[in-house]
């Protein structure tokens, strides 16, 4: 019989990288859950938000931290651990890329969160133009996405390294699933990244006068649909 330590063979350093992602995800869950609870209380009509905090400010917090932050951090953290577990310990270079991605995403999350808390970005997580948020909100969300790409490169590099070492063999299922999911994520996020970078950010900085709202929303949902779908699949196979 295998002992527990033999069964769970994730390198400590990789585990730490994965856990860092989970910590942010759990903090997001706690914050978002609190916001959700406040929404329900406000809606019940028996409670008013103190200190001039707006309902939609809370709702923006809820949507961003649960919809965007929790899901992204959790999935990436899970995949890093899954790949390390099934394809072997990450190299130092891969782990460094992982930490770099993690900190870029975290910095972006904090920037977006601060702007929401300052009531400079009560535009909900969908941020449909021409509702306008502070430029730092868009920049923060961009960093979350760019960070997730850097993080995703870990999965791609680890898969490529495994392929090279094991020619002709089928790759471990969890690694393969993580790879495919990472590729889907990258394809999907190109949409939201392009509307934020090329339309909303220049517009919020005053560099351009107007944005094409139909294109912006189309690009957002080009990201949104696959993200919802992959989110659902993730929940199912994480459950397994």
């Amino acid at each position: 019989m295998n002992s527990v330590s033999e069964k769970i063979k994730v390198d400590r350093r990789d585990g730490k990288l994965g856990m860092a992602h989970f910590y942010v995800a759990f903090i997001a869950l706690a914050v978002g859950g609190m916001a959700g609870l406040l929404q329900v209380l406000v809606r019940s009509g028996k409670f008013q938000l103190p200190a001039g905090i707006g309902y939609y400010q809370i709702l923006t917090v809820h949507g961003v931290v649960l919809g965007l932050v929790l899901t992204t951090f959790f999935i990436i953290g899970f995949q890093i651990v899954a790949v390390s577990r099934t394809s072997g310990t990450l190299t130092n270079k891969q782990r460094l890329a992982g930490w770099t991605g993690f900190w870029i995403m975290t910095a972006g999350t904090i920037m977006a969160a601060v702007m929401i808390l300052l009531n400079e970005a009560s535009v909900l997580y969908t941020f449909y133009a021409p509702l306008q948020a502070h430029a730092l909100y868009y920049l923060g969300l961009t960093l979350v996405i760019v960070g997730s790409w850097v993080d995703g490169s870990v999965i791609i590099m680890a898969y490529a390294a495994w392929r090279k070492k094991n020619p002709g063999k089928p790759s471990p299922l969890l690694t393969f699933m993580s790879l495919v999911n990472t590729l889907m994520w990258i394809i999907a996020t190109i949409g939201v990244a392009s509307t934020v970078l090329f339309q909303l950010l220049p517009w919020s900085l005053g560099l351009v006068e107007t944005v094409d709202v139909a294109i912006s929303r189309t690009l957002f949902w080009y990201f949104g649909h696959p993200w919802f779908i992959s989110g659902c699949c993730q929940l199912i196979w994480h459950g397994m």
Partner: protein
Amino acid sequence: MNMHIHKFEKIWLIFGVATLLVFLSVVGVSAFYLGNQPPSCLATINPEKVDTTAPFDQPGLKKVKGKEWDYELVFVASAFQYNPGEVEVPLGAKVKVLATTKDVVHGFSVAGTNINMMLEPGYISEFTTTFDKTGEFLILCNEYCGAGHHMMTSKIKVVEK
């Protein structure tokens, strides 16, 4: 390469691809054969000149002649109101609803009916319907538009004349 695909995997893949084809065909037939389109479809307007562009310079109900519908009901949305704020429509009238927005994205959902459109700046949303029940129908904004979003309403009163 010896690629072995398990029987169940094959069935699963065929099922997946088949569903994809079926659903895409349904959308294609609906759009290109039946001519269905979203409420805002290619009709555009300068959002800064809504107030001076016909028919939005005169919001409200208007009788029209020589068209497939009897009336045109014109709405202009802006944060956080609709113009008109209340309107009467005769029972049984075939009405084309035309709506647009002067500022951000708004919704236009008429409770208890199947009218539900998104109003986007620069686009005209249209829906043709027959009001065949009397009563008051609440119009609600169901796209977040800012701090006063939840207070943005209007009303259609369907009356016997």
